[in-house]
């Protein structure tokens, strides 16, 4: 859907507590435009819990249930069951969690909810760190990235959450990025109309966490996709479809840009460039991305 065809209705109110240039609020606006007011959210500990702002006020114009860090998907299962009993079958249940609450501490509850077929949309806004606690490594943090708990750069590669999700064979999962609002909107809209568990992951470049200037949030997401560091796809009933630039890369219609073009703009990778270039690590990171794409090319 074209941007101008998206609804003017806003469920995110201005004057909230997000950082300037926040990808989470950017994504939330678009997600809630796609879902509309007939939506109930559950939010675990993450930046969004702060963005809601201070009691007795909230910046959310849909019902939100804050829940413990590891419990978003389980809470959503309860909400969904209750709404079904109340006859509110057309209300969308949305679990909205960060990568810490998804890849790490919330993985068990998420896997459980997917396995038992909870009819909900789980969205992970992935900024590749524990940002709310002040930039610590998560299972989504890329190799070599500085965080406050990987001071010399992370020594492990990030886990492939998409693979874990697809192993549950749910009706719909997708990856997108805040830089492509049409793609994000379309995926959420599609998920809304599918029965069963749906999982969408949104790459959410975080200015303070990744160490870039706050006006570059969208640009940073775009470059992640163009370099292949992030992939936009959807998986419906185990069939993978790649979208946008990711499709062009997959089909080799365009070359993906060198990974370095993305990482050199982020302060979290600056130790790879100064005082001197760390050729070995840069090469390793590019190889890692290339391998991911080779795997994608073998997908059904």
């Amino acid at each position, binding site marked *: 859907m074209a941007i101008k065809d998206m609804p003017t209705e806003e469920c995110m109110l201005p004057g909230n507590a997000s950082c300037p240039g926040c990808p989470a609020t950017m994504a939330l606006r678009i997600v809630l435009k796609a879902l509309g007011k007939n939506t109930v959210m559950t939010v675990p500990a993450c930046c969004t819990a702060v963005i809601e702002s*201070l009691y007795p006020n909230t910046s*959310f114009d*849909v019902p939100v249930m804050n829940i413990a860090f*590891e*419990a978003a998907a389980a809470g959503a*299962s*309860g*909400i969904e069951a209750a709404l079904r009993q109340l006859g509110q079958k057309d209300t969308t249940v949305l679990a909205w969690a960060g990568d810490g609450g998804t890849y790490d501490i919330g993985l068990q509850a998420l896997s459980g909810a997917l396995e038992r077929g909870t009819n909900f949309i789980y969205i992970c806004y992935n900024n590749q760190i524990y940002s709310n606690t002040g930039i610590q490594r998560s299972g989504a943090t890329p190799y070599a990235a500085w965080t406050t708990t990987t001071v010399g750069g992370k020594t492990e590669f990030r886990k492939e959450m998409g693979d874990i999700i697809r192993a549950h064979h749910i009706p719909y999962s997708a990856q997108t990025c805040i830089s492509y609002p049409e793609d994000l909107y379309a995926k959420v809209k599609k998920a809304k109309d599918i029965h069963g568990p749906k999982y969408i992951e949104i790459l959410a470049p975080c200015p303070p966490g990744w160490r870039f200037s706050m006006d570059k949030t969208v640009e940073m997401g775009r470059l992640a996709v163009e370099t292949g560091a992030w992939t936009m796809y959807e998986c419906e009933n185990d069939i993978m479809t790649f979208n946008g630039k990711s499709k062009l890369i997959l089909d080799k219609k365009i070359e993906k840009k060198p990974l370095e073009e993305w990482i050199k703009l982020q302060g979290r990778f600056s130790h790879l460039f100064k005082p001197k270039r760390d050729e070995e690590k840069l090469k390793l990171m590019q190889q890692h991305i290339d391998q991911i794409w080779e795997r994608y090319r073998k997908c059904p």
Partner: protein
Amino acid sequence: MTMMIDTGNYIAAKAAIMARPAVVAAYPITPQTTVVEGIAKYVDTGEYKGEYICVESEHSAMSACIGASAAGVRTFTATSSHGLLLMHEMLHWAALARMPIVMCNINRVVGPGWNIWADQNDSISQRDTGWIQIYCSSNQEIFDTVIQSFKIAEHEKIILPVMINYDAFVLSHTSMPADIPTQKEIDDFLPAYKPHWKLDVNNPITFGNIIAPMSYYKVRKAMQDAQEHAKTIIPKITKEWEQTFKRNHGGLFEEYKTEDAEFILISSGALGAESKAAIDELQKKGLKVGLARLRVFRPFPTEEIIRLSKKAHLIVIDRNISIGNEGAMFNEIKAALYQKSDAKVIGYIAGLGGTDVTYKDIEKMCEKAVRGKTKTNEWYGLRED
């Protein structure tokens, strides 16, 4: 009314479905498992028409109950021991969110080593979560208390979750007869659920966002006030139950032969039921010992304890231990009497790890206490072998 002869767990499951919760979310753990199985059976027969969520952990069981309760429906779950401990974080969550969730906890030893027998350290360690805690001593009491607990939890002056505790195997797996009222009678006693707040798409609210210190302080005070209200409301509800069903297991306490007592034994759970036989024996011997079986540990019945202490000295048996100090009930009973009473309070630890405590043992403990021979913090029946 029909008679059901079955185990505490199956009777709890029957009570749970007759309270018509819209959502049950549970995870199996010995010795709670047959509650889960019992409900599954009622799902299969169609007697239970609500949602039954088989979650992947107790943490998720409580989280799902919280989600469902927040969405505006009645919820039930059951657990035991390690399951209860895994829920710990969400127990606080449910109480702070003022969710009238009802849960059966089958009192079981906490590991390691693995031991599935009865003691109360699981629930005692959850006493500060804001949940109302009730301890039962028979299968009939389990049935009645489950139904009553929904009414207690949902009372407009309470709105807190309730944990119904009963002993592993001694009650959970022992068949006893219980009168089961008709569904109509239950429905008359316990009307359909009306939430005090909910996630409503027509009136959106955010629950649980960031809260400043003074506002949070007020939330805590409101919980404390609710627990205080429960001290008078629980006996009112058990009285109301009695009017219809001609049974009352006690409000905060069940008193037994305390009229002329010089000593009153305070015990709880199955051990509390066992104590009655001990009291009979003691009184036959001319020892003036009565029983006050503690049913409600939260709210703590401070005023009732003081009242009992005006009549008699108190003997307390704890099937739990706050390691580094003493039995939880002994500790709190003494605190309740501080500067209010000169009664002696004699405490025993007994039955930890599921060790058997017969009425003969209880009799011995009481006799020793009456004779002033009890050691400080005595662990009854601890053998050297």
